């Protein structure tokens, strides 16, 4: 979907847009890798806390997902993607 959307926009501007679409999809996939780490934290937190209380496990697991994925994204952006604080979307 992301690739097609980028392709369409570039086609409308009179360009091919294939490469741009692939790059956009790859960028989304790289974000999803970090999201998957968050998902792992979600499952681990739920696994550890479900015997205490299901509600506590839900809240903690959601917080774990949010904090781990955002922290991982921030660390990835600082170290790999934009080490010199360049504008990169």
């Amino acid at each position: 979907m992301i690739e097609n959307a980028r392709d369409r926009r570039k086609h409308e501007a009179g360009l091919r847009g294939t490469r741009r679409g692939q790059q956009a999809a790859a960028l989304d996939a790289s974000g999803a890798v970090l999201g998957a780490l968050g998902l792992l934290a979600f499952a681990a937190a739920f696994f550890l806390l479900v015997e205490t209380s299901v509600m506590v496990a839900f809240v903690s697991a959601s917080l774990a997902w949010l904090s781990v994925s955002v922290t991982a994204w921030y660390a990835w952006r600082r170290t790999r993607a934009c080490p010199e604080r360049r504008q990169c979307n």
Partner: protein
Amino acid sequence: MPVLKDGSLSIPWKRAVTNMTEYVVRFSSGAWSFRPSRCWGNLLRPKSFAGLFGAAPSVALVTLASRSTSTGSATLLFQTRSMMAGAVALAVYCVIVCHLLVRARMRASLATTLAFAVWLTVAFGLQALWDNVTPIHLSFSSLRDSRWYDSPSGLHSAVLSPPSPASRVIATERPSAVFSLPFQRSSARARRDRERTRSS
């Protein structure tokens, strides 16, 4: 579909219909809960940050919520364990998709199709590895005083006769190969118990 004389369904069919209804509810509610996270993903910038929402636990939340209302915490433990394997597989899948798109310059549809095979391999491989490496710990407090007996349905080699509803859920709803070894062991134990009762 076998219908009894009073018009009701037989027990295996009732169970099958209930399970199917549950799957349909989970599938549809999971799909609907995925939409907001995907919308956030389309709205947010930068694009890599938006990608985080592509792996949002929306389906996981719906599944666990629906399960937590109907079953005990022990079943949720099994589900989250499989979820961890799925999360690792998803991370590997996304890395491979990313590399195929950037380095091999494939179309997204082809890259995702190829990487899906890797996802399947990693997910089921981890699951199998976990099942083989770690023994099944039936050390949940509710199962401590359980006894074993043969299952009349034939779906499992044996099930538990649990003292609490939480452990009954495990016994009846997880008839997978994961449990084959402990159940076989327990089946022998149950046979010994039956022989003892007969002799007494």
